[in-house]
C-alpha cells in the first residue's frame, strides 16, 4: 500500500487528421511500442493494461478494447477500460497509477487513443435526447457562452484568445508529434479566421485528430532502476479527480468548484502551497483558446479575473516564468480520448528532461490537467524530477 509511482516510458503517435495507413490496433501499438522502448521493456513484462478513450460512437465500435487484446499481448492479463468524458486520458492515467500505488501491480501500461477520422465528433456529440438540454453544435457551441461570461467578468481584452492560439500553435512547431504545424501563422491570420461560435474563431479551436499515447508506470524499484540506467523517471507527487453535476443551482461554469477542489487536492498531496512559484511548467486542457486564462484562475495560478494578464505579459510563453502547453496543447492536437493523457505525458516528459525542442530547461515540477463534460469532470496530476 502507498507505493511510490514512477513514469518510465512514454510513447506517442504523430497526431493527424486521418491516419488512413494503420488499423485501430496498428495505431495503438505504435504508441505502445514507443513507450515500451522508452521503458526498455517488452509487452511480456507488463502486468496490467488500463485503457481510456472518449465515446465508442466515435469509431462505431462498442468497447473496442476487447478486440485489441491480442494486439496488446494482453491474453491472460487484466485489461481495464475507463470512460470519463474529455478528462478520460487523465482519469485513465490516475487509475493506472493507483494500481501501482496500491501495490497490486508492479508495471502497468496505460493507453489513451482515438481515431476521430472514423466519424464526425461534433455531430456524434450532438444527438438529441428526450428531456435533455441539447448540445446543438458540439463542444464549441456549448462553451462559447461561458467564455463570453468570463470576458464580461474579467474585462479581458478581446484578443486574449488570439494570443493563446498563436502561442500554442507556435509551440507546436517545436513538437514533432503535434497535429497542426502552421508555419505561416500570425496574429492577423488567427484574428481574421472564421468566427465559429462567437467569440471562438476557427484558429482558436482544437482540431479533430487521430492518435494514441501510451505510458509505462512502475513502482519505486522500477523507477530507481530506470534512473540507475540513466533513464530519468518522472515521479508522481499527487493525483486527483473531481466531478460535479452538469446542472446544479449555484454552479459556476466559468470557474467550476470541481476544478478548484481538484487542484487543491493534488497540490496538498504534492506539498504545493504556492502553485505560481512552485510549478515550473503546466500542460492544461485548453481546447478553446480562452480556457487558458480561465484555467489559470481556476487552478490557482492567478487571482480571479487576472488570468488573462499572465497571457498578455508572456508569462505562459515558453520563455515566460510559467510556460503553459509547450507541446502545443489541445489547440494543436486533439484525439479526444488521448488528449488528457497527452497533457499528463507531456508534463512527465518535461520533468524527465525529454521534451526535445519544447523542453523547458531545469523543469523539476510539472502539472498535467484535463477536463471534460460540461466543464464538470477534472483530472490532474503533479509530477516531479525528484522522488516525493
Amino acid at each position, binding site marked *: 500500500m502507498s507505493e511510490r509511482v514512477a513514469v518510465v516510458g512514454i510513447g506517442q503517435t504523430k497526431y493527424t487528421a486521418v491516419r488512413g495507413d494503420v488499423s485501430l490496433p496498428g495505431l495503438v501499438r505504435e504508441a505502445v511500442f514507443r513507450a515500451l522502448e522508452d521503458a526498455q521493456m517488452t509487452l511480456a513484462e507488463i502486468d496490467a493494461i488500463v485503457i481510456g478513450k472518449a465515446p465508442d460512437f466515435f469509431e462505431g465500435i462498442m*468497447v473496442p478494447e*476487447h478486440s485489441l487484446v491480442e494486439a496488446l499481448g494482453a491474453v491472460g492479463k487484466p485489461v481495464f477500460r475507463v470512460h470519463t468524458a474529455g478528462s478520460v486520458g487523465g482519469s485513465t492515467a490516475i487509475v493506472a497509477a*493507483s494500481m501501482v500505488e496500491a501495490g497490486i501491480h508492479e508495471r502497468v501500461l496505460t493507453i489513451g487513443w482515438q481515431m476521430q477520422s472514423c466519424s464526425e465528433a461534433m455531430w456524434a456529440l450532438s444527438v438529441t435526447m428526450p428531456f435533455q438540454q441539447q448540445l446543438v453544435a458540439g463542444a464549441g457551441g456549448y462553451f462559447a457562452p461561458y467564455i463570453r461570461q468570463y470576458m464580461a467578468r474579467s474585462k479581458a481584452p478581446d484578443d486574449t484568445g488570439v494570443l493563446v492560439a498563436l502561442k500554442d500553435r507556435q509551440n507546436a512547431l517545436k513538437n514533432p508529434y503535434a497535429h497542426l504545424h502552421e508555419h505561416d501563422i500570425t496574429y492577423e491570420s488567427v484574428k481574421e479566421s472564421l468566427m465559429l461560435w462567437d467569440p471562438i474563431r476557427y484558429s482558436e479551436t482544437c482540431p479533430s485528430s487521430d492518435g494514441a499515447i501510451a505510458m509505462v508506470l512502475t513502482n519505486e524499484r522500477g523507477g530507481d532502476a530506470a534512473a540507475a540506467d540513466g533513464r530519468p523517471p518522472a515521479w508522481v507527487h499527487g493525483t486527483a479527480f473531481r466531478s460535479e453535476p452538469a446542472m446544479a443551482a449555484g454552479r459556476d461554469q466559468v470557474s467550476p468548484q470541481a476544478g478548484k477542489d481538484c487542484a487543491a487536492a493534488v497540490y496538498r498531496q504534492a506539498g504545493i502551497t504556492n502553485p505560481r512559484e512552485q510549478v515550473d511548467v503546466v500542460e492544461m486542457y485548453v481546447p478553446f483558446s480562452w480556457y487558458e486564462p480561465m484555467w489559470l484562475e481556476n487552478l490557482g495560478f492567478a487571482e480571479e479575473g487576472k488570468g488573462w494578464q499572465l497571457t498578455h505579459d508572456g508569462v505562459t510563453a515558453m520563455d515566460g516564468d510559467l510556460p503553459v502547453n509547450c507541446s502545443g496543447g489541445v489547440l494543436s492536437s486533439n484525439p479526444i480520448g488521448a488528449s488528457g493523457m497527452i497533457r499528463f505525458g507531456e508534463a512527465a516528459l518535461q520533468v524527465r528532461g525529454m521534451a526535445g525542442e519544447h523542453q523547458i530547461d531545469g523543469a523539476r515540477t510539472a502539472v498535467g490537467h484535463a477536463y471534460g463534460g460540461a466543464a464538470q469532470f477534472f483530472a490532474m496530476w503533479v509530477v516531479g524530477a525528484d522522488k516525493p
Partner: protein
Amino acid sequence: MRDVAIIATAQSRHVRAAAATNEVELIQPVIQEATERSGVGRHDFDFTCSGSSDYLAGQPFSFVMTLDAVAAWPPISESHVEMDGAWALYEAWVKIQTGQADTALVYSYGKSSPGDLPRVLSRMLDPYYEAPMWPTSVDVAALQADMAIRAGVTSEKAMAEVAHRSRTAAASNPHAQLTSSPEPAELLEDDYLAQPLRRHDCAPITDGGVAVVLAAGDRARELCDRPAWIRGIDHRTDGHHLNLRDLTSSPSTAIAAEKAGVAAGPVQVAELHACFTHQEPILRAALGLGEDVTVNPSGGPLAANPMMAAGLIRLAEVANRIHSGEVDRGVAHATGGHALQHNLVAVLEGEG
C-alpha cells in the same frame, strides 16, 4: 492489502422494459436505498464509481446525466468505467487500497429495452473481420454452446435443467424478472433460437440497476453487523478472435480464480454471470466448484440480466447471503465481452 467489505447493497425491481423511466430515475432510488442501509451519509463517501454503456443508452457520455442520481454537489471524487459495475467495484477497491478512501459508493445500470440488444452487442466484435457479418450475441453464444456440447462439457438436457433450476430458484428473489419455468422436458420441445440454443437457454433482456457500498476495516465493522469481506478479487481477459479461442473453457476465469484464492477454503455459494445455460458448466470447471456448491440461488442472469449491472449484482447477491448469516464464504463472478471473454472473480467471507 487493507480489509475491505461490502456493507450494503440495493437493487431495482428488474423488468423487461422500464418504459418512460430514464436511467437517472431508474438508478436514483437504488442508490438512495443502498446509501440509507449503509449508514454512510450521502455526502460522506470518499469515492464514487459507476459502470454503464453508451451503446445501450444510445448517447455519447451517457453517464454524465446519471451523475444527477448521486449527491455530486459539492463536487465529489468520482470515476466511471465502460464495463460492468463489478469493475467499478474493482476500481473502488483499488482506491481504498491506496489509502485515499475508506468508503465508496459503487453503482451500475443498464436499460437495454429501447434497442435490439443482440444486434447492438454485435458491435462489440472485431470491426474488420467479425462485426461486418453482424452476428448477434445469441449467434456467438450458440457457436460456443455447440462446441461445448461436442466437447462433452454439457448437453441440451443439462442446459434445460440449468434454466429450470435457475428460474425456479428466482421465485424467492424479489428483484427477479423471470420467476418460474416449465419442466426441462417441456423446455426441450421448444424450437431453436440459434441451434443449439432455445429461448430458455438465454438470459432475458432486462432494465435495471444495482448499488453497493464498500468500507474498509473498522469503518466496515462499525457500520455493518456482518460485513462481507472481499478476501480476494482479480480480473483477466481472454483473446477476442473466436477462431483463436477454445470456447469450451474459460482460461481467464481460472487465472482470476487462482489469484483471488477461490480454492483457499470451502465455497458454499457461487453467483455466476452466465448469460447462457451452457456457460454455467464452463465456469464451474474454471472456478473448480464441486457439485455441492449452490450456484445462482438468486436465479442468476437467467432470471434477470440488466446489462452492465448483472455482474455487480452477483457480488451483491453473495454479500447479501453473508450479511444475513446464511453463508460464511462465497464466490462471485462477472463477465464482459462475447462468450465469456473478460472475467472477474471475487471471494467474499463473513468474519471468523
